[in-house]
Structures are given as C-alpha cells and as structure tokens.
C-alpha cells in the first residue's frame, strides 16, 4: 500500500464518539465477538444497523436544547436578568419584561433547531432505508439496511455501498477477489483489491450458503481502519480456525466496483462500523465576525456594569443630599441599599446588550444559507447537485478568506483520464482536432493505422498501438446483459461499454485510458487468459503470449511485459517515465530529441506523459534470463523485491524508443479561470495532495497555478538538516526584503520534507518561504499533514483559511481550516459530509467566495453594527434620564414598549440589512475580484468601527433625549393649556428613536428592495399601530395603566409633529453628511462601481485606473524603501497589479526536467500483485451469477 494510506489515522485526541455510540466507545478494543453462520446470534446483542447523526430526539430535545442555549454567556446573562427581575422592588421594568422576549427568542431558536435536525433525520433515514440483499431462511431477500444484523450474509452488487463492515467470503471474480473504491474513506481513487480466504471462495450460490456452518470470531468494534483481526471456523466447532485480516475486510463507506457481486458476513453494524467510529462531530467553528461580536458583547457588558455602578453611586450621592424629601418614602441606604440600586440599574440598562442579536444573526445566517443552497449558478446539472451550506455559522467567513488549501484529485481534477496526444517516432499526433473534441482524434494518425503503407512511420504507429493494447494489467470483461443493479449511473472512468460489451477493469485510470484509446483506434483488447492476451486488431484477432510481467513501482517508474508476438518473436514492451526509459535506450535508438521536445510541450500543457519503448529479445537470452536471474530473484527469501528489480533491469535495456503518450488528467470545468480570479482577489492557493510530485506539478501547470514564467523551488529532502539547509538557501535566494511578499516563485514540497519542515525550529522559516511564493504545492502529504499545514497558516498568519477537498483524506484539513468546503456530487462523500459548505465543482468557489462570502460579510457587518446601534441609541437614554430623576432607576418609557423594541419595532431592519443588502451586483462582484478585499480585510467590522458606532449612537441618544427635553421643557404641550408627564415625554422620545433608527437602517442600505421598504416603513407603522392600541388596553387588559390615553394625547400635540419633522433628520444629519463627504473626497472602489452601475456604465476602466493609482503609490513607497520599483506586494493592495517579474537567479531550479510530465497511478503492494492479477483472469470463462 502507498505511504498515504499508511499514514492515514484520525487524530486520536480529537475523536469524539457519536452520541449514539458513546456506550460502545468505552468498550473499544475490549472483548471479542463471535458470530455464527445461519443461526441467529442471540447470545450477544449487537448495535443495530441504524445510524443517527441528528442532535436530538423527542425526549432529549428540551433538556439538550436548553443546555445548548444556556451554555452561551449571552443567554445566561438574560436569564440572570430574568431572575433579578423577580426580586420585589428591584426591577424598574416589572417582572416579566425580559422573560417574555427571552422566551420568544428561545422559541425562534428552537424552531430553527427543529427544522435543521429534522433535515438530518431525513438524511439518516435515506441511508438507513437503502436496500440490500440479505440471506435469510435459505434465500436472498431484499431488506432495508436497518434490518441487517451482525452475522447476516449479504450480497452486494456492483456500484453499491457496503451496508456495514463485512468479511468477504466470495465474489464473482476468480479467487474471491473484488475491487473496492475507498475514496470515501481515504480519498484514494485507484481501486483496491480485496480477496477472500480460499476456504470460502467456493461459495457461489444460495445452496452453498445454506450448507455453510461455522463461526467467525473477531475483535470488538474499534476505529482502526487498516486493522482487523479475526478467525473463521468452518464446519462446526471441530473445524480449523483460519485467520482473517484486513484483506478480507470490506468497510462501510466503501463501494464495490468492477465486480459483479460479493458475499460477505456482516461483522460490525451501525455506529460500531469503523467508518462511524471514525466519524466525529464536526468541530464547532466560530467565525471571525462572531468572535469579534462576542468580544463586543463583553465590552458592552463591562460598559453596562460601569454605568450601573456610576448610577448607583449617583443614587447614593443624591440620597445623601441634606434635604428632606418628605414626599418619597424612606429610601433604603447603606450597603444593602447600594447593592439593590446596583441590581436595579443592571436591569435598567441590560438592554444595551441587544437581546435579539443572537437570534437575529441565526435567522439571517440560516436564510443566507438558503440563498447559497438555492443559487442556480452553483447548481451542477449533470449530477443534479445544488450547493449546500451545511453550517450557517460561517457565511461571512467566506468573505474573508486569504488562503485556500485545495486537494487535487477530484477537486481540481475530475479524476477522469483521457488519452489526448501522442508522439510517435518524432511526429506529434492529436494536435489538430482537440480544440473542440475532448478525445484523441487525428486524421493523419487514423489514416496511418488503417491504411498502412510500407513506411517507417506507419510501422512505428503500429508498434505504438501494440504497446498500448498489450502492455498493461487491465482485465477485459464481457458483459452479457445490462443489469440495472450492477451499473450505477455515475460517471464511470474504467467501466465502459462499447458495442462489443467490453468493460475494462483496472486499478490504474491511466492504463484504462490508454487501453480505451487503443480500442477507439481499432485495436480492441478483448480477451485475457492467464497466459495470453488477445487483441482484435482492425477486426483480426492477434494473440500475444504473456511470458513475464515486470511490475510497475514508484521507484522503477515503468512497467514492462515480455510477450511472444503472433510472429513468434519475443519482445519486451515497456512504458514508463521518460528519464528511466531514456537511460535504457539503445545507442541507435532514434527520435530521442524530438520526443523529448514533445514531452516538454506536453508537460507544459499539464498532460501526463509516458514513454513507450520496446526491444526484441533473443530466444536463448530470454530463456537464460527467465531461468537464471529472474527465477533466482523471484524465489529469493531475502529482499525479493530488490532482487526482482535487479533482474528486471537486466532485460529492460537496449530499448528502442517508439514514442510517448500524453494523457490528460481532466480538470474540472473552469478551474484555471477560477484560480486566476481568486488570485486577483488576493487569495493564495496552496495545493495539498497525497499524489505524486510529478502529478501534482502537472496539475499545477494545467490549472495555471504555476506558469512557465515562474521559477520552481523544489524541496525534496529527507533529513531535518537537509530540509533546514535547503530552506535557508531558498530564503537567501529570495532575499530578506522580499520575504512574505508575492514573488514569482512556486514552491513544491514533498511529504517527507514536510515532516521536518513542520518541526518546531524549521517551521517559521518554512512558513516564511512558503509565504514568499506565489504558489505552493505539497505532494505526498498525509491527511494529518494537510491539517498541520492548515493549522500552521491559520495560527501563524492570523488569516482566514479555507480548505477544499473531496475525499476522506481531506476531512482533517477541512475540519482544521476556518472554512471547510467539500466537493459533492458523488454519493455520500465523507468530505462533503464533514464540510461546512459543499459544492459540486471547484469553479463554484468563485461565486461562493466573491459573491456570497463578500455579500454576507457586508450584510452581517451592517446587521450587527445596526443591532448594537439601535440598542445603545435607545437604552442609553435611560442613563441621561437618570441624571434628572435622582438616579432612582425610573424608566422614561413604558416597560412593555421597551421590551418589545427588539422584538417588533426594530427587528425587521437588521433582517433586511442582513438578507437583502447588496454592495454591488453579483456580476460585478465576480468580474472585479478586487472588491473582495473589503470583506477580506475586515474593513467594515472591527474594533475601530465598533467604537465609532458606539460614539455615534451615544451622540444620537444624547440628541434624542435632550432635544425632546427642550421641546417639552415648558410642559404646556396643548393649546388648551394641558401638560404632559414623564411618559408623555417618553413617548415623544421613543417615537423619535424608532423613526431615527429605522431611517438610519435605510441610510445604511445601499440596496432598497421591497423588503427594505417594508422593514423601514413597516417598523414605524407597527410602532404607531402598537402605540395606538396599547394606549387603550387598560383597564380591559390590566397592563399599561400609565399608557392609557397616551396615543390620543401625544398624537394630538402639535409639538409632537413639529418635533417629528425636525428631530430624526437633525439627528441623522451628520451621518448623512459624512456619507456624502466620503463619497466626494474618499470614494472607495465599491462606491465607484455602485455609481457606474447606476449609470449603467461598465466599471472596468475605473477599476483599472484605481489599480494603477494605488499601484503607483505603492511603487513609490517601495522605491523609497528598497530602491526597487514595480514589485508586487502581497497582502495590502486589493487591486490588480501589473505583471512585472523579478528575474529569479538561475540557481533556483526552473522547469527543465521533462520528466515532470510523468505521472502514473497504480496500486502498489496490494493484496494481489499485478502479475498475479492478470494470471488469474480468464475473460473467456463466464462468471458465476451468485444467486
């Protein structure tokens, strides 16, 4: 197995058992289980095969929900206020004025939770109710997954997931082999082979199973994906125990591929399966904005305590004044009195902290998530997959991303290989036609194939195709009928049907692509028997005898077969990396130079290249080798592999170069464009892949992450000292003044190097180096390393990171990053399940970040600031009033109007700001990634902005209190000489506050949708309506006696109306003026674009001009600092930078080595070796049906 796999272990400290399996986790590794075939396993009770990922059920909802809610300091605060209000005589606002809104808010939160949990339960049900054939009472019956119990024998057919962890008994393939796809578990896309033990291989039909008796004993459920220990005992207790290991294990989450069916015994079910044991609740991620908000809530609480203390002291001072206020009863004083006053003021001012903020944010974010889910631009039609926000906590974090860590396979690429071009005997083919068509086609080539003339070139072409169709380990399979069960509807890579109904099975997608290409050219590889390969060459069967298979390994970088061709000649056909092939070419081999040039061209286009070569072997020499060196090596006891390689080397020489193939690892749609756009938005993209260096670089080129202009720094050291030295060298090369700036350099790091580079002392210099490069590609990295890299950047750079991937090997990185994005579309992918957002295509990231992220950030910033603003604005008035009422804690307003302020009269404007605000149109947000920098740099919401807002709302509250105070200073408010009272003034003030606050919300809205109108004018109307109604409650409804008749009188007072016209505009005057002045004197790019949008002008020129301006400023600055001009500086210029490159000195290696194009994926060291594999297949024999 590959290194990647071996390294894959979930971090043990972070594994949190699922709620449903908490009991079993304690028993982990304890005890064994025994299960018997064909008799119910009653003596032990096993976990049901039902999974539940929901948070709650009916019974646990209320306690768990309340626990969750009151874990938040915010809610505890209001709960304490509620309790304080119950103390008699303390509360200035009655007993229930906090409990009612708090209950309301918890109710809203509860409804949201219920809806979300309901969805989770529905998703679980979908999995739980999948159907599976289970062997019961002598025959197979179709049952639901939930009905499967431990000990059941199940039949899984091609393309289906395993319902639990199974022990493989037998399969449709020879010797109980089967292919499984484990991309869900480890992210690897090459198929893996599992093989049942010989004793059970013969179980091929129901009758066989019926007579089966025996038992399996195995270890208890655990979460080690690559370990399994068990014994199978056949034929009753007297039978011999045969050991079972991981090679017989088929894990839940994996999928059966290229195998018609398998029989397996269920050993672990439900939450006891290894996949579920590894599943952990996604860590609760908190967005940057939320953290800032929390901080500010604490600030407000501190301010609340301070002003409460100040007021309580004021109250003491007032009480101590040497006067006899005989009209007020004896006012308690002393320590107890002071404490009570303090509580009174805390209750009085508690609403400075906006009680509705959290629930408003939750609602807003939930609906924003719906907008993400509903975005048609992020809907992928072919797989019917819309984007999906799995958490709504991070909507705005999407607008602040600075680093993207991307997986390669399945994320940047489609994991679909296609033979694109080739170079044969110095002539390139496939150049012409592939502008539009995806597949290889070349008229000239086909002409040479079908109508060969006796020229060298045609001969070479023929040889080339022969190697293509013979030198591989692909197994053909003739499918007789289309069984709807056995063919899944997903996009098959190596499972294809042509008119001959041949499917190719291969664990290497590259080989499958080559064989398929050969088939298209008319050379149909049709039959493989243990000794022969038959190719239908242009309608004529040609049979090649396979003498030896010289296996592929990543050190050899090549594979060969020795065949006896139809003409009786023994040939060695070889394909592999160009450098290893070139070393072994015979001196008189031609076209080396041309081929190398072509290879370089291919590599530059990001194609994966393989060189093809062959040589004729002398019969005697071959026999000598086969009997001598090879036999000795293949029977060696010590270091057999090494000896075999040496033996292979003996024959793989004097090769004759035929040509080279170029295979495209197809990128997903729009990947290069997306990367370019994201780069313009000043987002750095790092590719982290478990794949090989060559492949990774390849893809980096083809998706334009690395361009030809860029120099490469390749770190490929295996020792700590070596790593340190290389990093230092590279850092010197870059020069200290350009550190952590964007240089035109790409850094390629291998997993081994990374192991050392992430060590404590090298870490920071490694980070320095990585941050100085425009592109970073890490290859051969394990899932844990991926997470470590993300962690490193996350903690050391204080920047927002986003990880995107599609496989289970990306899960740790997805969970480590601030935002995790999963690529969805394939069924049940674990990465998507543990991600925060899942999208079907990498390209959708562009809209997700630039539009949704930036919009949501801006919306939430406005929403939060406004929520704070409106509360400070109203409730600080109580403080100003306290100066006039002897710090007694008297409220200026009616108690219920106060507590409904957040619920009804000002609840809509934050929602409309949070949902419908748009800074610029989505088209322009996408077109000008520069606009992203506003959210990325958190310009709109930070501590500075918060305090400015605080100051502003303090001023507003002062104005809103004192202007009406002056207005009513003379008391006489009516032409008939009547006067008002404190509540009369209070209602003036309250109305003015509501109007001012609503207008302020309108002023903050750059976009007035119908909802904005509704929220602004609607809130004002709701207040007036409530005011009118509430003034007539008493005495019918025994509340609000003080309010009786207020509306009639307030609205009848001309002073009220004159104040209404004057006050809100006067209060908002400064805000308005500032906006106008800012637009006039310090216009931002956003505002510029907004104006252009209004006038329907294309803002391109403006953006460019702005870019040029700020560039020249920057350049000027740099000139002064470094004496260098025109160098791009990372991090602080949001706008496009002109393309100027510093020449990187020659010692940093640039792309010269054509072998960089080489890439080949093949499972190595699997349970069945490649040569064994092809020896076991006989495609002429029909396969059992397994019924």
């Amino acid at each position, binding site marked *: 197995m590959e290194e990647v796999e071996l390294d894959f272990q979930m971090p043990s400290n972070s594994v949190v058992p699922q709620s449903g399996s908490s009991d079993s986790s304690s028993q982990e590794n304890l005890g064994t289980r025994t299960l018997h075939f064909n008799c119910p396993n009653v003596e032990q009770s096993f976990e049901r095969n039902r999974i539940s990922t929901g948070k709650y059920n009916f019974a646990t909802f209320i306690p768990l929900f309340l626990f969750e809610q009151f874990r938040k300091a915010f809610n505890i605060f209001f709960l304490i206020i509620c309790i304080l209000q119950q103390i*008699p005589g303390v509360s200035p606002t009655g007993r229930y004025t906090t409990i009612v809104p708090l209950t309301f808010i918890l109710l809203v939160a509860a409804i949201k939770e219920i809806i979300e949990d309901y969805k989770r339960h529905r998703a679980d049900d979908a999995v739980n109710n999948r159907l599976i054939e289970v062997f019961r009472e002598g025959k197979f019956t179709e049952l639901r997954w939930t009905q499967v119990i431990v000990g059941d024998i199940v039949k899984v057919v091609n393309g289906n997931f395993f319902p639990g962890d199974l022990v493989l008994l037998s399969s449709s393939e020879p010797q109980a082999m089967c292919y499984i796809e484990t991309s869900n578990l480890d992210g690897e896309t090459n198929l893996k082979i599992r093989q049942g033990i010989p004793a059970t291989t013969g179980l091929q039909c129901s009758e066989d199973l019926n007579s089966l008796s025996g038992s399996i004993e195995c270890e208890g459920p655990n979460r080690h994906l690559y370990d399994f220990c068990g014994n199978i005992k056949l034929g009753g207790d007297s039978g011999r125990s045969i050991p079972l290991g991981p090679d017989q294990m088929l894990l839940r989450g994996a999928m059966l591929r290229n195998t018609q069916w398998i029989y397996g015994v269920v050993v672990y079910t439900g939450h006891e399966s290894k996949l579920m044991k590894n599943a952990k609740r996604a860590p609760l991620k908190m967005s940057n904005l939320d953290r800032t908000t929390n901080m500010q809530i604490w600030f407000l609480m501190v301010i609340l305590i301070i002003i409460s203390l100040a007021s309580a002291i004021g109250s003491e001072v007032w009480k101590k004044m040497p006067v006899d206020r005989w009209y007020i009863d004896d006012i308690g004083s002393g320590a107890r009195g002071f404490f009570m006053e303090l509580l009174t003021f805390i209750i009085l001012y508690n609403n400075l902290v906006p009680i509705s903020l959290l629930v408003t944010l939750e609602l807003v974010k939930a609906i924003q998530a719906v907008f993400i889910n509903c975005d048609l631009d992020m809907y992928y039609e072919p797989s019917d997959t819309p984007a999906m926000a799995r958490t709504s906590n991070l909507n705005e974090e999407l607008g602040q991303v600075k680093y993207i860590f991307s997986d390669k396979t399945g994320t940047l690429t489609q994991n679909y290989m296609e033979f694109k071009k080739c170079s044969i005997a110095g002539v390139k083919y496939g150049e012409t036609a592939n502008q539009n068509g995806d597949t290889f086609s070349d008229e000239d080539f086909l002409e040479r194939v079908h109508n060969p003339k006796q020229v060298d070139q045609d001969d070479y072409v023929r040889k080339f195709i022969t190697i293509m169709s013979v030198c591989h380990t692909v197994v053909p399979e003739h499918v007789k009928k289309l069984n709807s069960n056995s063919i899944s509807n997903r996009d098959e890579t190596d499972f294809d049907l042509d008119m001959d109904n041949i499917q190719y099975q291969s664990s290497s997608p590259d080989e499958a692509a080559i064989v398929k290409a050969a088939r298209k050219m008319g050379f149909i590889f049709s039959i493989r028997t243990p000794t022969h390969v038959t190719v239908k060459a242009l309608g004529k069967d040609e049979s090649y005898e396979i003498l030896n298979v010289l296996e592929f390994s990543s050190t050899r970088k090549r594979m060969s077969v020795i065949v006896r061709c139809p003409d009786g000649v023994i040939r060695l056909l070889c394909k592999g990396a160009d450098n290893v092939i070139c070393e072994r070419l015979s001196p008189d081999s031609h076209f080396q130079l041309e081929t190398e040039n072509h290879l370089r061209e291919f590599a530059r286009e990001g194609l994966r290249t393989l060189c093809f070569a062959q040589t004729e072997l002398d019969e005697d020499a071959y026999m000598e080798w086969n009997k001598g060196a090879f036999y000795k090596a293949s029977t060696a006891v010590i270091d057999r592999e090494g000896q075999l390689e040496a033996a292979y080397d003996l024959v793989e020489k004097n090769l004759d170069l035929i040509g080279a193939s170029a295979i495209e690892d197809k990128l997903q749609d729009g990947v290069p464009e997306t990367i370019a756009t994201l780069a313009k938005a000043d987002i750095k993209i790092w590719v982290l892949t478990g794949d090989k260096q060559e492949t990774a670089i390849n893809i980096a080129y083809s998706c334009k992450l690395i361009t030809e202009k860029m120099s490469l720094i390749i770190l490929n050291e295996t020792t700590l000292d070596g790593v340190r030295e290389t990093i230092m060298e590279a850092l010197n090369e870059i020069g200290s003044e350009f550190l952590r700036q964007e240089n035109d350099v790409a850094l390629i790091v291998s997993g081994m190097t990374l192991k050392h580079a992430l060590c404590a002392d090298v870490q920071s210099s490694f980070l320095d180096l990585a941050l100085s490069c425009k592109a970073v590609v890490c290859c051969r990295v394990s899932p844990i390393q991926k997470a470590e890299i993300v962690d490193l950047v996350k903690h050391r750079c204080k920047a927002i990171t986003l990880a995107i991937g599609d496989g289970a090997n990306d899960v740790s990185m997805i969970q480590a990053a601030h935002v995790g994005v999963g690529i969805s579309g394939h069924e049940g992918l674990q990465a998507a399940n543990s991600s925060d957002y899942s999208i079907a295509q990498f390209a959708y990231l562009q809209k997700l970040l630039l539009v949704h992220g930036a919009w949501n950030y801006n919306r939430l910033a406005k929403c939060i600031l406004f929520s704070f603003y409106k509360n400070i604005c109203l409730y600080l008035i109580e403080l100003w009033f306290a100066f006039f009422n002897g710090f007694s804690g008297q409220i200026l307003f009616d108690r219920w109007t106060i507590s409904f302020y957040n619920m009804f009269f000002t609840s809509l404007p934050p929602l409309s700001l949070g949902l419908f605000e748009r800074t610029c149109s989505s088209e322009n947000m996408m077109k000008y990634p520069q606009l992203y920098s506003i959210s990325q740099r958190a310009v709109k919401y930070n501590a500075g902005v918060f305090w400015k807002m605080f100051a502003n709302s303090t001023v507003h509250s002062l104005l809103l209190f004192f202007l009406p105070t002056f207005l009513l200073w003379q008391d006489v408010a009516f032409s008939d000489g009547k006067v008002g009272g404190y509540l009369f003034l209070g209602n003036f003030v309250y109305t003015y506050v509501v109007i001012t606050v609503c207008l302020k919300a309108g002023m903050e809205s750059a976009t007035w949708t119908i909802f904005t109108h509704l929220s602004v004018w609607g809130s004002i109307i709701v207040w007036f309506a409530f005011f009118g109604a509430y003034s007539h409650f008493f005495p019918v409804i025994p509340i609000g006696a003080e309010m009786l008749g207020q509306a009639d009188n307030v609205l009848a007072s001309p002073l009220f109306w004159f104040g209404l016209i004057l006050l809100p505009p006067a209060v908002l005057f400064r805000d308005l003026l500032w906006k*106008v002045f800012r637009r006039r004197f310090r216009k931002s790019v956003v505002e510029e674009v907004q*104006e252009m949008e209004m006038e329907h002008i294309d803002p391109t020129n403006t953006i460019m001009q702005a870019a040029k301006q700020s560039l020249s400023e920057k350049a000027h600055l740099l000139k002064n600092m470094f004496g260098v001009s025109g160098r791009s500086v990372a991090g602080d210029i949001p706008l496009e930078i002109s393309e100027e490159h510093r020449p990187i000195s020659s010692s940093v290696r640039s792309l010269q080595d054509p072998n960089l194009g080489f890439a080949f994926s093949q499972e190595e060291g699997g349970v069945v070796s490649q040569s064994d594999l092809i020896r076991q297949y006989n495609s002429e024999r029909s396969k059992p049906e397994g019924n």
Partner: protein
Amino acid sequence: MSRKPENTAFKQQRIPAWHPLLTAKSVFPTFLVVSVAFIPIGVVLLVNSQNIIEIMHDYTDCTSVEDNSVLCSSVRLNQSRMEETCTCQINVSFDTSMSGDVFMYYGLTNFFQNHRRYVKSRDDNQLIGQHVTQSTVSSECLPFAYLPNGTVFAPCGAIANSLFNDSFTMIRDTTVVPFLQTGIAWPTDYSQKFNNPSPVNDLSQAFSSYIRPLFWQRNVEDLDTVTSNSGYQNEGLIVWMRAAAFSHFRKPYGRLDRSSSEFENGLSVGNYIINVSYNYPVTAFGGHKRFILSTTNWMGGKNNFLGIAYITFGCVCMCIGVLLCCLHYHARKRHVVHVDK
C-alpha cells in the same frame, strides 16, 4: 425529482431594488429645499411663541398677610403649627392684556415627581373606582397604603399623599377673577382612568371605608363642591397624579372662565392680587413654588426652542447645501478638465 433550485427572483437574490446614492449631486437639492422650508417655519413658530404672555412669580418665600414678618414657609416647616393657615398675597400687573384663554399654573422645582419610588407608588385599580382593602390594595402604595389598623388610604400611595394643596384666588379690584378647576386634566384620564367607587352618586358613602392620606387636610370626596369634580375625579388630583418628567415642572391649576362678559376676551391690563393659601411645604427639600399665568397659542405654551431649532437647522442645511452644490460643480469642472487631458 430534480434538486435544481427554483429560478425565482427571491431565491436568486435578484429582487429589483433601488440604489440610492448619497452623492453631493443628489443630496444638495434636498438640503436646499429643507432649508427653504424650515427657516420660514421656524420664524413663524418663534414669532408665535413670542406673542404668548406669561407671568411667573416665585412665592416660595412670601410673607404672611397677617404678619409681615412671618414667612409662610417657616410656618410650614414648623411641625407644631401644622394646623395654622398661612395666606400670602402676590401682586401682579401687566401692561398688555392677556387675550383669549388664560391658564393658571403652579410650578415646583427640585421636586422629584419622577423618582422611581414615587412614580410607582399608586394603585390604578383603586383610582379607576374599584374598592380595595388592605389585602387587595397594590403593594406599590406602601408605606402609604393603609393605617396600622388596616384602613386603606383613599387614594393610596406617595403621589396622592403629596398632593399639591396650595390654593389661589385671583382678585381684580374687588371682584374675584373666575378660574375653573375643570378641563385641565387629559380627557382620557378624566373619563377612563379615574372613576369614583360605587355608589358614585353618594361619595361620602363610597369613601366611608377609607381614610384620607396622612398629609391631606380634606377628604378626597371634599376636594371640590361639585360632585363631578370630587373624589378621584377631581381634576386637580388627576393632574397631580400624572407624574412630571423633571424635578422642575408646572401643572395647571385652573383656566379663566370666559363665560362672563368681563373676562370674555381674557384678562385686561391692570393690577391683580392673588391670594395664596400657603399649605405646601417645599423649603424642606430646597424646592421653589411658582405661580404662573399664561396664554397659549395653537401649539401650546411659550416655546422658543422649536422655532430656534427650526431656524438653526434650516441655516445649517442652507450652508451645507450651498457647499455641496459648489463641490458638485467644482468636481464636474475638474472632471471635464481631467478627461480633456
């Protein structure tokens, strides 16, 4: 079933919207319009306010009519002379007649009617006419709720207990200027919030089970001779019960009865004497009492603030509007030059 999202304007965030841009160009006309509208309004308001005649007299330290050397306030401070009456005289003369409605107010300063413990100390159920007992009376009234023997005060609470009880009689020459003590409370208060307990036509029986508040000299049913202005429905009481916003406030005492021909047009120029029955102690808490006579206009009492505020804001708008206007045209000119280059 396809999972394709619906293509609606709402879900695709394409709801048509208006994008107001706050530019100098779009804002300056508004500013100019506002200034043009506000300044005249302000002037009208100010002139109107200036036309109101208001006569105010602080009589806190007035002397007794009987003995010029005795300050009524000191009589009120002395516990032993609680029962004594003290009357003082205020002489008022004005050179312009107070035409139209004339209102008589009393003003108090440094009296914290807005204190929390004071404001809440009332029982609205009692005032609406429900009979209350020691057990049903609102606890907010404590300690002014009932006597130790359980007899409930009518009305209870600190506000009622401290009812302003000075009385004014205005005399010109020898005739008493008629002031009505009705029509000074909010109609809603009079009709809905304050009602006498049953039987409403026999107040002495209605209030028989209650006792008057400690500081009162008269029972609640004897606040006025007219039944409709007695008991809880006494407008003086109602006015008092509506707590003022600040410690400095005025409350209406009466309005000129213009039914007689003599006072049909208000108060004419001349000398007036106001006899004050000085009962209310204010010096203890450092307060002052004022006697105020005032006319009103269509928007209430004398109120210069509103007019000044309108004029000020109008002027500011004017200045800023002109400034923005200049900025706008300047910018356009500059822009044109810029493009030419």
